[in-house]
């Protein structure tokens, strides 16, 4: 802390309980560093917090649910208070979910909060990931924290999907059936893998109890470890900040944890919990009683996974049906490609993006000042392409509802998507990059010529022009406080001693990619250019107002 206010006298002592702890744990040392830790203030820095708080809400409501949920597939006859299913044979898991929904006071609320929090948890992680991506916050030294965050997103999605499978209703059973079908169709080990995971043939009577352990113990434990690591790294690296006057790569400007961020972030936890609880109270989610108990011979229209699996579902839906039979084996391309190749490839690309970008650009410096998305048009375009790819697959996952709600043919939606998933991202990349470049040009215009004042001046010879007012020095600094983008250059073919440079082809590729990456980005003006533009502008004003060539000529060329 740079704050060097008058120190308390050396005899100051903690209150007794804190002293007790400090004597044993040295809490004072931790507090000294962190009590007044500075966080920059920006709404987009709160997105990750939504995810963190949803996770806490998930744990709290999840514990409540475990008190009554029976993770067992033993068959019983339902005798609870939901009359439309009374007397039916069903698993204990499903019956206890019905009990939680209808016979435990507050149970339905907790179930719905739990489910909404899961929806928000993953959505918030994804929005947070997008913010990190588009602002370049993943760059050195934060690449590992990107990977950690990505790991949580991945685990969160699996966690959510398993949770969706636990109530053993018709919808969750259908989801698991699809998963089992995909596992079974995997090459070589598929059949065995499926038998080991499900304890034999599908559905068997093991899956709920097994998935329960994974859902309440294994994955939450792993996420907890990663959350801790993630937060530790945020504290260690200190938060990134947007460019602005007084904000440099060597400082962080904002409000201290105690008291402002304790109140803001702590308050935000309650807001997130409050909003989730209100959603749980007012918006019905996963009405398991309507689906009925799982029955392998039943299915319902609109069998969809929760939103975060939708893109995978879409990828499977729009895949044409191919399968190879050779050497006595079956290779199911119709599942291999959309479920086992494309998603992992996509996911790996996203997870490794920081390393890929840094290799291409050759940028190995630490970055704590965030990029404005427009200032890195190619990255922004790539992000838009990824969003488009994901979004189109997402639409594919709901193609039946798209068909019925927008009055189009289901088959046409599918055919459209089969092409659009390839063309859409390219188009999105190109359009977004162009928009980013235009915005950069607009910034440059603003910087060099100032704001349009709205004041039209008429010159004596009848010409009209708008007077521009220069922007403030603060804003001018903010607009220019970013890097110049200079492509990586491949070095000379041989060094001074005539030895050929190693990995020449790779480096050539790298230089090419790097040029592509930085091509067309508008470089910020130099100090001289700004100076020039300002004096020119000044001249022009004079010119238009006085309009005498003679005067113009005698005007000193200085401002």
């Amino acid at each position, binding site marked *: 802390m740079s704050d060097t206010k008058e120190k308390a006298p050396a005899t100051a002592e903690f209150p007794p309980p804190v002293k007790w702890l400090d004597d044993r744990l040295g809490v004072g040392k931790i507090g000294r560093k962190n009590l007044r830790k500075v966080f920059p203030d920006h709404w987009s820095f709160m997105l990750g917090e939504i995810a963190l708080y949803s996770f806490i809400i998930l744990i709290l409501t999840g514990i409540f649910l475990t008190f009554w949920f029976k993770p067992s597939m033993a068959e019983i006859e339902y005798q609870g208070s939901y009359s*439309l299913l009374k007397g039916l044979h069903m698993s204990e898991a499903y019956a206890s979910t019905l009990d939680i929904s209808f016979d435990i006071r507050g149970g339905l609320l907790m179930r719905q909060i739990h489910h909404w929090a899961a929806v928000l948890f993953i959505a918030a992680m994804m929005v947070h990931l997008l913010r990190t991506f588009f602002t370049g916050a993943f760059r050195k030294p934060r690449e590992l924290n990107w990977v950690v965050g990505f790991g949580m997103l991945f685990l969160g999605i699996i966690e959510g999907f398993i949770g969706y499978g636990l109530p053993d209703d*018709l919808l969750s059973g259908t989801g698991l059936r699809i998963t089992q079908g995909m596992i079974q169709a995997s090459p070589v080990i598929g059949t065995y893998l499926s038998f080991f995971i499900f304890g034999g043939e599908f559905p068997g009577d093991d899956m709920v109890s097994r998935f329960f352990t994974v859902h309440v113990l294994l994955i939450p434990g792993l996420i907890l470890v990663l959350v801790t690591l993630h937060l530790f790294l945020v504290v260690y690296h200190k938060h990134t900040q947007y460019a602005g006057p007084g904000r440099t790569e060597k400082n962080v400007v904002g409000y201290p944890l105690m008291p402002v961020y304790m109140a803001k972030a702590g308050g935000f936890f309650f807001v997130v919990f409050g909003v989730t609880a209100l959603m749980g109270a*007012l918006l019905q989610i996963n009405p398991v009683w309507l689906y009925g108990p799982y029955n392998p011979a039943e*299915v319902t229209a609109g069998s969809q996974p*929760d939103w975060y699996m939708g893109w995978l579902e879409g990828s499977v839906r729009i895949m044409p049906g191919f399968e190879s039979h050779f050497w006595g084996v079956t290779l199911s391309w119709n599942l291999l490609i959309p479920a086992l190749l494309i998603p992992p490839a996509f996911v790996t690309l996203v997870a490794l993006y920081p390393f890929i970008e840094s290799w291409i650009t050759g940028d190995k410096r630490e970055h704590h000042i965030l990029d404005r998305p427009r200032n890195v048009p190619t990255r922004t375009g790539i992000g838009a392409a990824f969003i488009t790819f994901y979004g189109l697959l997402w639409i594919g996952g709901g*193609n039946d509802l798209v068909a*019925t709600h927008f009055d189009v*043919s289901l088959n046409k939606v599918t055919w459209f998507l089969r092409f659009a998933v390839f063309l859409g991202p390219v188009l999105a990349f190109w359009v977004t990059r162009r928009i980013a470049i235009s915005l950069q040009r607009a910034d440059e215009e603003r910087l060099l010529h100032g704001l349009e004042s709205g004041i039209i001046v008429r010159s004596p010879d009848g010409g009209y022009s708008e007077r521009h007012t220069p922007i403030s020095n603060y804003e001018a600094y903010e607009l220019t406080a970013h890097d110049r983008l200079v492509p990586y250059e491949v070095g000379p073919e041989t060094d001074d001693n005539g030895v050929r440079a190693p990995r020449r082809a790779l480096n050539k590729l790298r230089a090419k990619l790097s040029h592509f990456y930085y091509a067309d980005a508008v470089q910020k003006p130099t100090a001289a250019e700004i100076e020039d533009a300002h004096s020119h502008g000044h001249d022009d004003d004079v010119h238009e107002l006085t309009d005498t060539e003679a005067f113009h000529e005698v005007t000193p060329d200085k401002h």
Partner: protein
Amino acid sequence: MSEKRTSLSPARFLSARRRHRSAGLVVLLFGLLAVGSAYAAFAPGSAVADNSAQSQQIEEGKKLFAVGCSSCHGLNAEGSGNGEGDMAGPSLIGVGAAAVDFQVGTGRMPAMQPGAQVPRKTPTYTPEEIEALAAYVASLAPGPAVPATDSYDISKVTDEQVTRGGELFRTNCTACHNFAGKGGALPNGKYAPSLMNVDPKHIYEAMLTGPQQMPVFSDQVMLPEDKRDIIAYLHALQEQKDPGGFGLGRLGPVSEGLWGWLVGIGLLVAVAVWIGAKGVKAKGHGAPGAKAEGAKAE
């Protein structure tokens, strides 16, 4: 999926014209019907009277058919076109009174225009006209009759039977019509319509006759009591007040995800923006005199 009513007003427009053209005829038919039914009511035991009332009704139906239906289905209901896929007008010989009662009673027929599927709309014909049309079509060849009222009367159905109806519903119906009877997509622009707010008689008839794409669930395989139980379950679903709040259309996870993003993430981002926003400043004001807190600034 709610029923598509977009073409409602053109339907009214056209039906109005159609009525207009045959207005005189309709008035006449009303008169005849009134006389016929009054006669039937007063002389229930008389087979001769019954027969004559029936043949009269068939005659009326035939006239109505010639005006409103024959352009697609042929003058003698023999059908036109291939009768398959495109609904150019299949043969109606042998479809029975139940099919006519369903198609015309739910307003699907007369169809407005050929398309992937003929939507439900406000019926064009009066119940009496529908009866006459049904009688005429039934007279062409034997087919399923309009079910008797007590076969779809759900007032005496027990809770166990409703539960059983749910089992039958999930086994036979949800694949197309969705778990809550909200409907769903079929190939090439066709769809299974919503079953909400449909007359129990029409649900029964749909199962019995298999209108449009829908397969037939004949009374020999799916007994009348099976059908009644399904109808009772559907009724219970429709009457059920969603215990958890807004039902979000009872469409499953897609609408839930949409609401989660729009409402949940939307609201929370709005709050985040509020947290990060700089409040109103007292422009150009010097250091505060009053509050000690303010002076503590670095």
